[in-house]
């Protein structure tokens, strides 16, 4: 029982991080039908921003997190303006390839500054609580708690504010909505900013939980978060969160009860089966192309 609870905690921590990153993929896809493959690298830049702030300015956790989120949000908007906006009318494939290029650019930009793995300084001391044989660290509480808060804020923005209404409207039909006087470009920028900021928050929390960071750290995690977004139904905000927790649950679950050597094989096999049964993901809805 303790074993099961401990593994559940492990899965919740990993799932929160996947979910935060998956949100960035799903938001951009929802509004632009673009798979932003650079998002995993924005997550990496977020981790390095937090590292820079913590190592050189010595700021504590909250301002470090906020500044990293703001910086990466600005970077996200800049990338959209410079790289994606000129291609908005181009074939979707061009934009996706551009996104891959932007990701590689970000990795190598970071390599220029810092080619070696770095140790993330501690932003706050770690407390360890043990109940019986169950261990719980303050970082786990922070990661799970803060992720939930950020997700609730996002859900509120998307579902309850005017901006969220505009985002959902553009996602529903990007051609008619501008005719109604919705400032499409500003809404798209806001979407990129929010997605990138969540990615940076994930990067900061990730660097605290796994304190060795390097320029390629976003690649594998980015793919996994993308898969989580697809499993949840890409384009659907709640689906991304659900997908993140399912992916982490399956990964940890397989490793916990089956030989770890087959972890990726079994967990991704399961996800494939799920996609065969529900091709649009758990919460995604099939989109009918009108002729």
């Amino acid at each position, binding site marked *: 029982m303790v*074993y099961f609870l*401990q*593994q559940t905690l*492990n899965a919740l*921590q*990993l799932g929160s991080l996947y979910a935060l990153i998956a949100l960035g993929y799903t938001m951009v896809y929802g509004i632009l039908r673009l798979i932003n493959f650079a998002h995993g690298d924005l997550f990496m830049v977020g981790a390095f921003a937090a590292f820079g702030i913590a190592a050189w300015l010595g700021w504590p956790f909250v301002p470090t997190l906020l500044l990293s989120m703001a910086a990466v949000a600005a970077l996200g908007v800049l990338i959209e303006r410079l790289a994606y906006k000129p291609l908005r009318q181009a074939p979707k494939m061009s934009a996706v390839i551009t996104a891959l290029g932007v990701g590689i650019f970000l990795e190598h930009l970071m390599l220029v500054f810092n080619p*070696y*793995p*770095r*140790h993330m300084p501690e932003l706050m001391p*770690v407390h*360890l609580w*043990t109940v019986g*044989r169950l*261990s719980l*660290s303050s*970082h786990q509480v922070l990661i799970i708690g803060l992720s939930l808060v950020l997700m609730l804020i996002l859900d509120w923005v998307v579902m309850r504010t005017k901006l969220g209404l505009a985002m959902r409207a553009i996602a529903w039909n990007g051609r008619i909505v501008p005719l109604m006087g919705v400032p499409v470009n500003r809404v798209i920028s806001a979407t990129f900013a929010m997605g990138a900021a969540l990615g940076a928050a994930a990067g900061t929390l*990730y660097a605290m*939980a*796994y*304190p*060795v960071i*390097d320029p*390629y*750290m976003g*690649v*594998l*995690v980015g793919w996994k978060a993308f898969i989580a977004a697809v499993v949840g139904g890409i384009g659907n905000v709640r689906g991304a969160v659900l997908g993140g927790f399912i992916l982490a649950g399956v*990964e*940890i679950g397989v*490793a*916990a009860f089956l030989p*770890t*050597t087959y*972890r*990726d094989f079994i967990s991704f096999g399961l996800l494939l089966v799920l996609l065969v049964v529900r091709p649009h993901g758990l919460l995604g809805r099939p989109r009918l192309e009108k002729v």
Partner: protein
Amino acid sequence: MMCNKVLAVGIAVGMIMSSAWAGKDPVIRIGLIAELTGDIPAVGASCKTAAEQAVEEVNKAGGLEVGGKKYKIDLVVQDNGSKADQAALCAQKLIAQERVLAIVGPNASLGAVPASSIAESSKTVLITPWSTNPKTTLDARTGKSKQYVFRACYTDPFEGRILARFVRDTLKFDTVAVLYDVASEAPKSQAELFRQIFTQAGGRVVAFETYTSGDRDFSAQLTKIREAKPQMIFLPAYYNDVPLVVQQAQRLGIKVPFVGSDAWSSPDLIKLSQGAVEGFYFANHYAADAATPTAGVFIKAYQQRYGKTPDDIAALTYDAIGLLFKSIQVAGKPERKAVRDALASIPKYEGVTGTMSFQEGSGDPVKSGVILQIRDGKFVWVCNAAP
């Protein structure tokens, strides 16, 4: 037919030119293939510095005396970019174009395996300083030893064996858990040999868990290991994974010590783990703090030249070049086949990384490893581990 003629003329001209050139100035050309760029530039840099030092020492003394004649050594350095295909290309270029007598390098097994196949088929001696993969000196198809390929270091299975012996016989632990990267060749063979030998010696491996290169979260595996209650955890992982594993283990309340492989041996391990690896043991090729007189001379000269303590790669490169010089002298003439025969049966060579010898039929030296412990952020010698 036409082609053959051109080729034959070309070869003839090449031979005349090279023999004429060799006649004028007694020079022995030695190739060095190092990872100067790419994933592990630190490895290539160490290798090159040590090689240059070894060559300069001989040249300053007037050259290498072979068969009563003094030869100057000419070192031809090639960068393989830490890539397998480029390593093979470097070997080809050194053998065919630069016409070197023998090659030292590459260091990483990734490049050493393909480069050694080229050397073998061109009948040119290749000594790798640092490649521990058995496939470097073994022909994968026939399972037999390559004739022209040698190494200055021990092999992965050997390391798994000495670590298992150390944990069982010296530390006297009964139960051990193993966690390794299943996608990386060296850790895999070390882990498997460790389990085999440790079990044979009466110990029990209570958990045998894996992860995949690039993983950062080891919580599921470590929770599993915690349930198995081992007395020690064997972690044959690269130095950048080690701090993450150790820290996550501590956060899960695991208090048992870890033991590691030669991949731990980087000053970066200390920097990245911030004291979390204090007191842990690992196996390595040599210990800079417990130097023999031979090693002491090398370490001092290296420090004077480059202002830092040589790492295991520098020491092994120096030994690889030393072995080569020695076998050229024993052969009595700078010829590829004669050098190979001399090297294959060197009875005893006193190197920086210990005494080594080769037995006919194997390119792997008979030599010891060392066990180090991390104390106050430094690697401290604990004991030698004989084969």
